[in-house]
C-alpha cells in the first residue's frame, strides 16, 4: 500500500506540475514587473480597459440563454425518445453528434451565407426584420442559435448518461398511478432524478460558450473570448493577466453552478 500511495502522489504531483507551472508562470509574469517589483497594475488595468465588463456580461448572457434553449429543446426530446420511440435513438444520436464533425469554420461560413440572404432576398418581407433582430450587437441571438447547435453533442451525452441511470418509464407510470398528470410526472418524478445530468450539461455548455472564439469573431460580435484576443494584441502583460482572470472567472462560475446544484446525490443506484 505504501508503494502504491507513493505512486499515486507521484502521478498527482506530476499532473499538478503540468497544470500549475504554466499557470504560476503566467501569474508571476503579470505581477512581477522588472524594475517595479510586485504590482497588480496589470489586473487593475483590465478593469479600466474598455469593454471588459460589457463583453463578459455579453458572454454570460449568451451562456445562460444557450443553456436555457438547449435544455428546453433536449430534455423533453430525450425523455420522449425514451418513452415513445426508443428505435429513433441512434438517429438522434447521429444528428446530435454532427456538430463535432463539422468544423466551426465551415459552420460559421454557412451561417454567414444564410445571414446574407436577409439584405439580398428578403428586404421586402417581414423576415428581414427578424434577420436584423437576431444580429443585434447588444444581444446577438444568432450566436445563441449557433451555440445551441455546437453544444448538442455534449448535452446529448450528458443527458443520455443521466437517463440511463433511471428507469424513466417506471418512474412516470408510478407517478401517474399516484395521481400525477403527465406534466407533474415529468417535473416531480423524472426531472429531480436528472439533476446531475442537467448540471453536467449546463457545465459543458457554459464552458463552451465562454471559450468560443471562431464563430463570434467571424460573425463580428465581441463576447469575452473575442475581447481577450483583441486586447492581447497590443499589450503582452495585460493579455496574460486577462487569460489568468478568465480562467478564474470560469472556475468561479462552475463552482457557483455546482453550489446551485446543492446537495447533489449520485443519481445512480448503489
Amino acid at each position, binding site marked *: 500500500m505504501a508503494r502504491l500511495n507513493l505512486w499515486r502522489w507521484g502521478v498527482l504531483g506530476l499532473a499538478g506540475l503540468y497544470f500549475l507551472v504554466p499557470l504560476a508562470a503566467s501569474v508571476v509574469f503579470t505581477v512581477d514587473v522588472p524594475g517595479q517589483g510586485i504590482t497588480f497594475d496589470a489586473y487593475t488595468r483590465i478593469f479600466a480597459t474598455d469593454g471588459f465588463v460589457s463583453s463578459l456580461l455579453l458572454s454570460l448572457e449568451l451562456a445562460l440563454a444557450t443553456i436555457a434553449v438547449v435544455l428546453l429543446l433536449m430534455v423533453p426530446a430525450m425523455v420522449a425518445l425514451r418513452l415513445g420511440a426508443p428505435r429513433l435513438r441512434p438517429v438522434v444520436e447521429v444528428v446530435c453528434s454532427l456538430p463535432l464533425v463539422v468544423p466551426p469554420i465551415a459552420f460559421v461560413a454557412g451561417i454567414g451565407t444564410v445571414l446574407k440572404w436577409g439584405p439580398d432576398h428578403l428586404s421586402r418581407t417581414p423576415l428581414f426584420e427578424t434577420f436584423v433582430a437576431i444580429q443585434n450587437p447588444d444581444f446577438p441571438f444568432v450566436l445563441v442559435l449557433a451555440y445551441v447547435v455546437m453544444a448538442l453533442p455534449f448535452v446529448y451525452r450528458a443527458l443520455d448518461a443521466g437517463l440511463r441511470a433511471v*428507469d424513466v418509464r417506471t418512474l412516470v407510470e*408510478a407517478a401517474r398511478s399516484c395521481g*400525477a398528470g403527465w406534466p407533474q410526472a415529468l417535473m416531480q418524478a423524472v426531472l429531480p432524478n436528472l439533476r446531475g445530468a442537467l448540471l453536467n450539461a449546463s457545465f459543458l455548455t457554459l464552458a463552451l460558450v465562454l471559450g468560443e472564439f471562431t464563430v463570434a469573431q467571424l460573425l463580428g460580435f465581441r463576447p469575452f473570448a473575442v475581447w481577450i484576443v483583441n486586447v492581447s494584441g497590443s499589450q503582452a502583460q495585460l493579455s496574460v493577466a486577462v487569460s489568468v482572470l478568465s480562467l478564474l472567472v470560469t472556475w468561479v462560475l462552475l463552482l457557483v453552478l455546482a453550489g446551485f446544484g446543492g446537495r447533489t446525490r449520485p443519481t445512480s*443506484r448503489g
Partner: protein
Amino acid sequence: MPETAATVEFRGLRREFGPTVALDGLDLTARPGELLALLGPSGCGKTTALRMLAGFEHPDSGEVLVDGEDVTRVPAHRRDAGMVFQSYSLFPHLDALDNVAFGLRMRKVRTVERRARAAELLDLVGLADKGGRFPHQLSGGQQQRVALARALALRPRVLLLDEPLSALDAKVRLSLREEIRRLQQELGITTLFVTHDQEEALSMADRVAVMHAGRLEQCAPPSELYGRPATAFVAEFVGTMSRIPGRIAQDTVDVLGQRLPVDGPVPSATEVDVLVRPEAVRVRAETDGKSRVVATSFLGAAVRVTVRLADGTEVKADLPAHEAAGLTAGAVVGVSLPERPVLVAERTR
C-alpha cells in the same frame, strides 16, 4: 379502507402489438374484496391486462369496467388504482416517507396531514422507523413494502400488483407474500396480482385466473384449479401432471390395465391421455412388473419417483419416504391408479 370494495370487469379485451396478439378477447371479473391472481407463462397477456386496468395500455377493442362504470378512456392518473411494480419504482430522490406521501402531494393534501397519513401507512407495512431512508438505503423487500404503502396512500378502489415479489430472494418473498395477503384481507380491497409463479398464485389468491395466449383458460379457486383443471393447459401448467396413454371405452377409459370412469365430458377420440397428479400414482416393487424406475429425487416428506412404462412413457409419482426406500434407479415396478374418476385429454403427441 374503501367504503365498499369495487368490482372489476374485463370485457372482450383485445390488443395486438404488431404481429403478436397480447390479448385475444379476455373476459374476466374480479369480485369485490377478493384477491384475484392472473397466472400464466410469460407472453400470455397477464401484464397487459393489468396495465389496461391501470390505464397504461389501451385496448384495440373491448372495455374495462370498475363497479359497472366504463373506465377504458379514463387517463391513468384518474383511475383510482394503486399499483406496485416489479422493482425499482420508488422515486430515488425522495425518502420513504415522501415516496408514500407523493400521491397525497399530487392531490394537494396539506403537509401536516399528508405526513401523518404517510407515517401511518409506513407503520402499516412495518417500516415506521425507516421513513427517513432513501430507496438506495433500503433492501429490496423494504423497497417493495414502501411501494405497497405508496400504492395504498390514496385509498384506491383497486390494488394492482405486477409481479411485486419476482426480484426478491426466496425468504423475503415468502414473508412479504403473507404480509400482502394479510393487508389485503384487513383492508378488504379488490386486488389483482400478476405472477408467473403458480405456487405464489395458489397460496395467496382467492381465485386464480390462468391465462394462455391472450385468453382466459380457467378462473377458479386454487383447490378447484388443482383438483379439477378445466383444460389440459391448466392441468399441466398448475402443479405437476403426467400423461399416460389410454383408450376410451364408452364413458370409461382403459389405462394401465385398469378400467376407470372419466371425470368430466368424454372426448370423441378413442386414443387419449389420462392426466394424473404425482400423489395419485401408486408405485410398488413387483418382480414381474413391466415398468422401471428411471430416477428418484428426495423432496423431504416424500420422494418423487420417475418411472418409465413399458411403452416408454414417463410418469412421476410422489411416494412417502418409507415406501420409496427400496426403489432405486433400475428397480422393476408396477404402476397403478386409485379407483377414482380420472381426467382425460386428447392425445397431443
